[in-house]
């Protein structure tokens, strides 16, 4: 039977190294299957997160041959099998063990975002075309691959001042909800630091759900922030009326 070599990171934050495992290949096998095979036969304590194995839950993110992927959707036969396949944990998050990282920071960011607030007295009717636009953002499975590749987080670790692409997608889903009445522009500017994003589109490239994160979420949100805080005409109007900015 044909075999592949997987070079899997083993260890914790203090010490760790890649370890080679030989795995028999099965037709249609994905990287997560190979990891499960290692658990069953060679390393029962290999730490891996996973749930649905169908690309719906976003649990099994890792860096396969240097590329951030869902291991449940990465076919073994799509990889060059004549050399070892490297599997490393997501780099942008603190390591716990093997392929498992501490992603709790993401949940803290989410708590900062004001939830959906229907406008008072709305009629609960929506046009499918308006819903389509938001449903794109609602597809997000929170795999955090976009967070993992965003250079603001990955290379500069600015977690205190930046929300990351996942949460711009989340805010976009709320801001563009046809019946939502809240404004999250100040949050975007001050707490989620949307200005730090310089739209290199790395997030869009790795999104397993094909969400156009940069074009459809981040850029329109940046425009909202600009409209709200930096539009000279609006600033003048506000000055004349004596109104405060949002």
């Amino acid at each position, binding site marked *: 039977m044909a075999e592949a070599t997987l070079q899997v990171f083993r260890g914790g934050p203090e010490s760790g190294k890649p370890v080679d495992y030989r795995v028999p290949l099965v037709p*249609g096998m994905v990287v997560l299957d190979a990891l499960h095979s290692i658990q069953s036969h060679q390393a029962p*304590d290999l730490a891996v997160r996973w749930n*649905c194995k*169908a*690309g719906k839950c976003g649990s099994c993110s890792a860096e396969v041959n240097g590329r951030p992927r869902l291991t449940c959707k990465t076919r073994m036969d799509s990889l060059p099998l004549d050399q070892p396949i490297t599997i490393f944990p997501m780099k942008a998050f603190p390591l716990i063990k093997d392929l498992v990282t501490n992603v709790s920071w993401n949940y803290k960011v989410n708590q900062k975002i004001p*939830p959906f607030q229907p406008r008072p007295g709305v009629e609960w*009717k929506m046009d499918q075309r308006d819903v389509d636009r938001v449903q794109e953002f609602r*597809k997000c499975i929170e795999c955090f691959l976009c967070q993992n590749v965003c250079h603001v987080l990955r290379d500069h670790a600015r977690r205190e001042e930046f929300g990351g692409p996942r949460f711009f997608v989340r805010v976009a889903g709320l801001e563009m909800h046809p019946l939502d009445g809240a404004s999250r522009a100040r949050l975007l500017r001050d707490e989620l630091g949307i200005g730090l994003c310089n739209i290199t589109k790395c997030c869009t490239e790795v999104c397993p759900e094909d969400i156009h994160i940069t074009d459809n979420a981040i850029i329109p949100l940046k425009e909202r922030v600009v409209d709200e805080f930096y539009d000279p005409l609006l600033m003048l109007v506000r000055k004349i009326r004596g109104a405060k900015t949002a």
Partner: protein
Amino acid sequence: MNPEYETHEHDVLIIGAGGAGLRAAIEALAQGARVGVVCKSLLGKAHTVMAEGGIAAAMCNVDQADDWRTHFRDTMRGGKLLNNWRMAQLHALEAPDRVRELEQWGALFDRTESGEILQRAFGGHTFKRLCHVGDRTGLEMIRTLQDRGVHQGIDVYMECTVARLLKYGDHIAGAFAYWREQGRFVVFKAKAIIIATGGIGKAWKITSNSWEYTGDGMALAYHAGAELMDMEFVQFHPTGMVWPPGVQGILVTEAVRGEGGTLRNKNGERFMERYDPKKMELSTRDVVARAIYTEVREGRGTEHGGAFLDISHKPAEYVKRKLPSMYHQFLELADVDITKGPMEVGPTCHYVMGGIRVDAETAQTSVPGLFAAGEAAAGLHGANRLGGNSLSDLLVFGRRAGLAAAQHAKKTGTPTIDAGQVEQAERELLAPFDRADGESPYQIHHDLQDVMQTLVGIFRTEQDLRRALTEIEKLRARAARMRVEGSRLFNPGWHLSRDIQCMLTVSEACTHAALARRESRGAHSRLDYPKLDDAWGRKNNIIVKKGDAMALIERPVVEMPDDLKQILAEDT
């Protein structure tokens, strides 16, 4: 008790963070309770996220003729009248409000032309009834509940596994758990506990279920003295992927058939004509699963042992819009473009109708202070569940459980934890580390899956079921000697060693009940008793712990009032 244990105290502790658990948490919180939610995975990854087709609720947005009576009748008929009638009634009555509530919390369903929530057809439902978001309805639901719950102020303990329920006398007092990450132990004190842990599919080899579905809640409740009911009724979803082997069992949503998909065998025959000419592909899941299985067994299956499911007669853009994740799933995992050709599908273990016996109104079990909702509870679905009735079940009975548990907590004093129970649970959890040699839990799990798949599958016989009981007994003996390698730090082998104990308990319960029921009804098909038996139609099988052994007792199905009998008798 070891004073070093991390301890948390809640009025209501909820085990499980899927649809039922989160809906229960939101309700208990609204009642003023201090609420904690414990879950084995990260928040938002629970099995609900995999639900695809939709939520059944008689909203009447597409078919004006629908109403709760028809939904009630469909549910009861689908369940072959073994359902708890009151649960089926409450479910049909309350589901529309629960869906509207989700929308008010931010969920975005697909729309009709006039802007209402769109509804689609599904197996066993008389009318177009399933509110949906393409084929990712579960994701929409869990994200909505998750955000609502977190912003309302629930405390969530993620990646934490409950190993034992703690009691004070007859009453629930709390739970003993371990953190998956560090392997440390934690004690939860609680006046009321809601079990919302989902199902048992991981005991079978071909399954749509995730690693979490190991029957934890049912096993915990059983050991705490609660009754399990209808455990013989395991739903095999007719359409799981069959090829390639790496993806075997992954769910193919019933929405494919709801949107007009047809089933054919290798000879090109639409074989459902022979099994249910009236409803065809939209017959109930038990019927379609048996039909595909029979076609394959009689030599009319596809190359890889399944049937062809085809939606390619619909416009490609329509398929991509209504079934986007199916489109990608087949393209990426099986090299099949479903807009151009058929999928190969076959039955996959998907859901258990049975579970913890509960009171219909309050979701309370026979143990004071212990509640259960969702797939972990029994009663609503009887002998077979209709597609779409699970998500609505989670919302309707999750809410009811949260309400009743919060009210129960208000009249209950602070519980006392019995140190002896905690110490025993700790000893049992750590025992596999202490053994110098022994089998790996993975091997035992693998063998259990073989036993359940081959001997307690879609078609059952007395001989197979007796053999299964013997095999489960042997596996239990092997599990008592298994060994875990490595440390307590995020160690899946260790985690599995404990999950296996739960799987063995629910597998044994399922097999006992299947052996006792000498008839074929809904999802339970006996080759040696192929017909419905009226006497069995009046009985539920109950599994209860007697000493250290499992006992089976029969209970009469609760008698339905005359006005509901009338509804059932009416034709559609």
